[in-house]
């Protein structure tokens, strides 16, 4: 639905960007400086990068690669470290939902990829987060096949438990928790899945084994251990609460003590 004229609710911004450029996982990366000009405060951060990329292409230069897809804060693809903060300065917000009204004319903005051994850089600001998929593959599910499920109302679930489950389930798997953590721990991510399923009767038969398997896989993938900094909770765009980590660890400890698998 293209519009003819821009409508802006404020002065257009000019920003100086320091952007991490890296050709591929094997090459050395470095910062490059770009000017972002004529940016409306109503644009999103990624729309600002679109403008910069259009300028680069017009000059015959390769655009900055960054992950993005839904641009409405739910797919979890976008993943930028903006001035040292995962997803930038606005709390509870993904990069794609960060609007330029949070910046001022003349600002310097440093843009980096997620930094973690388990998230190697693919190109520029794009990192490989398939380690998260492998953690889920280790046990982040209820082991049932399609077909033959009982009626959905057979087991009542209290609204309170359903809400606790949903709070954890809203994780989008973006990896901001890992990027923000001094130890690059994936505990908030693991805890979110463990918590979602442990609050539902359907998830309880595998509750302890699930946490054990996912945490063991996280170790193997090279994520660090949780040291209770809680930077993850502060960076999480979905505001997943820290209690999910305690729940995940509790199930892990029970599994190691009881070996109930």
């Amino acid at each position, binding site marked *: 639905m*293209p519009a003819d004229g821009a409508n802006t609710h404020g002065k257009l911004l000019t920003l100086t960007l320091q952007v991490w450029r890296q050709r591929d996982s094997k090459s050395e990366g470095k910062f490059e400086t770009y000017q972002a000009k004529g940016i409306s405060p109503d644009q999103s951060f990624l729309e600002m990068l679109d403008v910069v990329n259009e300028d680069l292409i017009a000059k015959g230069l390769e655009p900055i690669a960054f992950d993005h897809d839904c641009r409405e804060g739910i797919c979890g693809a976008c993943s930028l470290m903006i001035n040292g903060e995962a997803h930038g300065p606005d709390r509870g917000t993904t990069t794609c939902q960060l*609007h330029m009204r949070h910046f001022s004319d003349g600002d310097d903005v440093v843009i980096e990829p997620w930094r973690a051994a388990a998230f190697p850089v693919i190109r520029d600001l794009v990192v490989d987060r398939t380690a998260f998929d492998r953690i889920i593959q280790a046990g982040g599910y209820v082991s049932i096949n399609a077909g033959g499920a009982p009626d959905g109302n057979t087991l009542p679930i209290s609204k309170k438990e359903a809400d606790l489950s949903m709070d954890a389930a809203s994780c989008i798997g973006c990896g901001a928790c890992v990027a923000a953590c001094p130890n690059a721990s994936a505990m908030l991510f693991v805890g979110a899945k463990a918590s979602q399923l442990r609050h539902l009767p359907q998830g309880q038969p595998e509750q302890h084994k699930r946490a054990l398997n996912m945490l063991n896989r996280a170790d193997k993938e090279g994520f660090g251990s949780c040291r209770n900094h809680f930077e993850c909770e502060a960076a999480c765009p979905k505001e997943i609460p820290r209690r999910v980590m305690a729940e995940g660890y509790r199930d892990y400890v029970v599994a190691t003590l009881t070996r109930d698998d």
Partner: protein
Amino acid sequence: MTAATAETTQKTSTKSPIDYPLSDLKLDAKIPSGPLDQKWEKYKFDTKLVNPANKRKYTVLVVGSGLAGASAASTLAELGYNVHCFCFQDSPRRAHSIAAQGGINAAKNYQNDGDSVFRLFYDTIKGGDFRAREANVYRLALNSRNIIDQCVAQGVPFAREYGGQLANRSFGGAQVSRTFYARGQTGQQLLLGAYSSLSRMIEANKVKMHTRTEMLDVVLVDGHAKGIVTRDLVSGAVESWAGDAVLLCTGGYGNVFYLSTNAQGCNVTATYRAYKRGAAFSNPCYTQIHPTCIPVHGDQQSKLTLMSESLRNDGRIWVPKKSDDCAKPPDQIPEDARDYYLERRYPSYGNLCPRDIASRAAKVVCDEGRGVGPVVGGVRLGVYLDFKKSIADKGKADIEGKYGNLFDMYAKITAEDPYKSPMRIYPAVHYTMGGLWVDYNLQTNIPGLFCLGEANFSDHGANRLGASALMQGLCDGYFVIPYTIGGYLAGQTGGAVTAEHGAFKETESDVNGRVKRLLAVKGKRSPRSFHKALGKIMWDRCGMGRTASGLVQAISDIRALRGEFWDNVQVTGTGDTFNVALEMAGRVADFLEFGEMMCLDALHRNESCGGHFREEYQTEEGEALRNDDDYAYAAGWLYRGDDKLPALAKEPLAFENIKLSQRSYK
């Protein structure tokens, strides 16, 4: 005989300003005989089965990992088939199904309010303006109940009542409450459920997952789909994959409009490439313009954001009665100066009338000069969605509990607080009902090529009701394809064709040729700028209102733009690296061809139905005027060459269980 070899007659149509040939290919829907409510049971008994021990001899290629793709891949793997699943995203969990907000319908009748399988079937056929196939829709309504059970068993945290039972809400086009939801993130939770099942099968080595891998062609061997050719988006490697069947679960083509509620990566390439290999493309002009989206704010905008239809349960839609009031803040417009136009025009459904009707009504009031919000391009394109009454009646906590995340999203994007002042909304492209033609088996006219979810055309006719897309994707993947694919595979020898076959080398060479051609243009204009220009043509001429003259103009404009693209597009970088410009250019190149076919389809259909509104065909009250005598068919367009118009094949639609009638929501 496949479409690729189908003879076309020289007979041309008479009613379209552009002559296209008619095909003599018969699109046989293969609907089982018998009464409507027994067809699926009968089919399941009659269809051939593959013995459990033999399933491992077959390989199925699933393209796409959204609700349809992930549910199909995991379920086929659970049954014992070998599955390869491909997605262009970095993880299957990011497919765009994840962004669906409001809910999923199911004929559970938990509310004791008169729902039934037949009523869901009836609402869907009527909502689709009598342009969907009865047998498929009935099967969808029947299986809807199993989907909820399956998702609950997976650990999907659906909303619950205090007594522990599943909660429901209402959606447009229905007078019962049958929509299940997980806050405003239903699509996310259903997709993560399917993704968790898929992950379990990946761990079991029954599914091999290929992320950041884009399908660029289908490989046909003796007229059967036996594989695909992909490009690895990281290394640039073009590779062949052989299988015994191919499932396209690649979503819709709404991004042909550039601005839509779709994710940036959504594209038509997979289905369009299948079309160019002979698959019929059905009803491409049926697109859904969703009534409740955040209005456009400027020309650097890259996407439009939906505000869930569920908001219409508690929000009231209005504009000022007089255009003089439009510039005033909403709280200074008194109650008697407001026009609650949906409640006025459609008293029995009110704010919950179907999407196509709500969207057109918004366009009408804005075209009359009664739109609200900032002036963009000389007009105010927005209407109010007001929660003041609901907040007063039910309390802020109740509204926050139901829609909190949507209100937050609105506030983030607009910097306005919807608890205090009404939201501003305007229609935006959201979903595409058209797609590859499929029969009752979900098989295209190319044997072995199946199409599931939004990518096919079968269930929503000319307009989709809210909370039905999630239902269809999961129905196709969990409960339909596991049965229907057996009927095809039982007649095939598993693993008979490998990627060593010459057809794969030929197709690879075609794909490599296209990549090289894009890189060789070295022009001045970015792929995005072409996409934007195409989007403007499509929105202006093939959007909410269409005319014959406008569509003829659009076709000519698209051809000119396509010509310029191949002379002047600038694709930087090389083919053997991670190259975002190249990715985008390939998708835009396909949209530039596909858009023309959409306009041709809209031009040929001399009637208005659902989301297809031809301004020449409307009732005195401005409602869509169907022409059932001439157009009660599904159109299937068949490729004949780059320099020729496609040929039209028709599947007549028989309505044996519901009487064809003028839709009324008054």
